[in-house]
């Protein structure tokens, strides 16, 4: 996508420019040029989570204070989701799934700030996380159930003459998982930010050339406000769905139904 927004065509309507990965300002021709905006925002995300968690639980007591209550709400959220889908057997995955959720969620929220960079608008990162989860599912399944685990490709109760077809379909849908898992997060964030950019460019750049464009800008500003609120919802919802699907895939590895 980057070649569509090359330096040659920098117009006011350059929608893809916000997704370019460039070295941080001031580091372009130094040995530190590998510190790109994407890398910086990933590190910033981890730092925000780590500092927040340490500060909130600095004075942990039996009767929680204000900060500790917030961190307990976050942990209860993780435990609630894991208990719903994985059951008590899946308690060992709470830390992993909660880390994934917090990383995606905080990265998305940071990406909503003006002049920041949305790290999950790049399919390389979402695909990396989805493939790691995919390989983890296979590892957990095989290590807990042995080669019998591959029986998930042959669901119980299917008539014998239909079985070859079902097995092929199941295998294809199994290998499509990392694809949809990563594309959902990437597509939602990219599309949302492009829409924000389009409306924002219209609202700001319609210009005071005539009464009509002024009215258009005045009308579009509340629309932009509402769309930003929607984007915050998407930031949370997509982080939740990404984690939820990871949990659902892990549930099949822990307790296969065949």
């Amino acid at each position, binding site marked *: *996508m980057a070649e*569509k927004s090359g330096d040659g065509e920098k117009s006011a309507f350059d929608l893809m420019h916000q997704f370019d990965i460039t070295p941080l300002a001031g580091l372009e021709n130094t040995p530190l040029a590998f510190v790109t905006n994407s890398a910086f925002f990933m590190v910033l995300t981890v730092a925000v989570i780590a500092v927040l968690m340490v500060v909130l639980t600095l004075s942990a007591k039996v009767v929680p204070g204000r900060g500790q209550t917030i961190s307990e709400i976050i942990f209860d959220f993780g435990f609630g*989701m894991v208990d*719903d*889908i994985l059951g008590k057997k899946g308690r060992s995955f709470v830390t992993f799934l909660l880390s994934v959720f917090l990383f995606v969620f905080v990265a998305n929220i940071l990406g909503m700030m003006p002049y920041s960079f949305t790290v999950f608008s790049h399919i390389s990162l979402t695909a990396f996380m989805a493939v790691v989860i995919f390989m983890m599912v296979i590892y957990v399944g095989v290590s807990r159930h042995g080669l019998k685990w591959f029986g998930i490709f042959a669901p119980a109760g299917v008539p014998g003459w239909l079985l070859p077809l079902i097995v092929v379909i199941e295998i294809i849908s199994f290998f*499509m998982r990392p*694809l*949809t898992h990563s*594309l*959902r997060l990437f*597509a939602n964030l990219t599309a949302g930010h492009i829409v924000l950019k389009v409306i924002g460019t219209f609202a700001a750049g319609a210009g005071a050339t005539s009464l009509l464009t002024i009215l258009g800008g005045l009308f579009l500003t509340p629309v932009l406000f509402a769309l930003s609120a929607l984007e915050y919802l998407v930031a949370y*919802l997509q982080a*939740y*769905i990404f984690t*939820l*699907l990871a949990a*659902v895939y892990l549930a099949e590895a822990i307790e296969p139904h065949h």
Partner: protein
Amino acid sequence: MTPEMFKYIGAGLATFGFVGSGIGLGTIFGNYFLAVSRNPASAPKFQTWLFVGFALVEAFGIFALLIALMIMFVI
């Protein structure tokens, strides 16, 4: 008409896959609200699987988007 134009037309046509995804999402959320309005106490029980169903239905829309992206940027 240059081949480049047909590429854009094809990418636009590929997004028609979202029609099915939209119908499916409407069915899922509509039925969820129907169920919850009949039995409000059941809302938390359905909520997790509501989002799993939402994600699975959306996957087919994403396949259509993938085809559109491939037409635009890969081929």
